[in-house]
């Protein structure tokens, strides 16, 4: 059991990294990775929402939608995630003021983050049980945070380097993202 969970978390972080191997959640990956601090806050917010969303969607899907209405997954999950993020924002704003200020605008942006929807649906494609799903979400969230952290470091370096005029801005960012992704491809196949 423990080894399964460890391998699920490691897979979520490295071999099946949400951003760099599955290419989900590219928007925040490119959008809020300019500074290390904001990138890590975004990663933490996404991790939190992923785990909470999985905690709610897994029972809903298993006991309500399976086996006849599986096709409703996307609609119902979006509905649940959106409501959940809003609720979380209200609660965090009320009780954890410092955390709310650290998350800032990113918490509400996660409502439409496809990585969150992706992980809730992938839990079922991979046939994981409840506990495994939660750890899968945690691993994916940590992987997302790791990717954000590494890439924001790369971007800070990009800011101070001389870049040919035709590549300035988004082009060089995409090239750098591709290189970071390529380096994560090196994890593929490890751990089976």
């Amino acid at each position, binding site marked *: 059991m423990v080894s399964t969970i460890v391998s699920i978390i490691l897979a979520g972080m490295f071999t099946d990294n949400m951003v760099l191997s599955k290419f989900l959640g590219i928007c925040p990956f490119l959008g809020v990775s300019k500074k290390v601090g904001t990138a890590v806050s975004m990663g933490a917010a996404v991790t939190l929402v992923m785990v909470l969303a999985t905690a709610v969607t897994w029972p*809903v899907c298993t006991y*309500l*939608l399976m086996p*006849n*209405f599986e096709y*409703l997954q996307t*609609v*119902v999950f979006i*509905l*649940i995630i*959106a*409501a959940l993020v*809003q*609720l979380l924002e*209200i*609660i965090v*704003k*009320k009780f954890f003021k410092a955390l709310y200020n650290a998350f800032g605008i990113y918490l509400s942006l996660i409502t439409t983050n496809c990585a969150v929807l992706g992980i809730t649906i992938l839990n079922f494609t991979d046939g994981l049980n409840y506990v495994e799903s939660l750890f899968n979400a945690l691993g994916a969230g940590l992987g997302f945070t790791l990717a954000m952290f590494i890439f924001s470091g790369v971007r800070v370096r990009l800011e101070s380097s001389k870049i040919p005029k035709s590549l300035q801005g988004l082009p060089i960012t995409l090239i750098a993202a591709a290189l970071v992704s390529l380096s994560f491809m090196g994890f593929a196949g490890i751990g089976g």
Partner: protein
Amino acid sequence: MEAILIPVIIVAVIGLIAGLGLSLAGKYLSDPPDEKFEAIRESLPGANCGACGYNGCDDYANAVKNGIAKPDKCIPGGPTTAAALSVVLGVEIEAEQKVAFIACGGDCNKSKTKYNYSGIQSCSAAAALYGGPMECSFGCIGLGDCASVCEYGGITVTDNLAKIDPALCRACGKCISACPKKLISFVPASSKVKVLCHSNDKGAKVMKACEAGCIGCTKCVKVCEFDAIKVENFLAVIDPKKCTSCGKCKEVCPRGCIN
């Protein structure tokens, strides 16, 4: 029938639970609306123009509330908004309506040209070629970069000299950054006497280049009873705070560059 009805019911019920949960959470958990913020936000024009340097009126209202920003930063609102804000905040503030002003009086009849410019019709392009085609390297080039950025049609170029209509100026400051000669600045709308020259050249050089340029003769300085005029770098500068718009300097100026 069941195949349609049950999914509809499932989604409707989940939506209902989520909606109810959110509205309950919103009612019991959210902070009470911030009255001070609301009052400040009400007093602002709501143009979201960003002229104050903040991201829209909400951001500025927040900064004012927290004491980070001064309440006189709203340019479109001018003194009316500043007065309203001072009531809300309970502090006295002084704010005057500002207008942009071009400090040059040298049109094509008065100022001489260095060369004939026939390139791209833009001041910044012309300014890159030996400081522009005018003999005076400080003066208005007159190709209307300022007029083209003005969204309110407040700037007209006649006889190679741009002029701002103070009635149309909203003090957005776009022309200030568009002018390659840095001729445009904000002045209080109430100030009637202004020096229409920006040249720091010595008197003799200005004499040759432009009929309307300030030569730094200091006649205006001597005649001013309120100590409002100073000559710095061969250019008369009027302090609008001390100036009473008596107009004596205007009469005495041999170059007619005070207006």
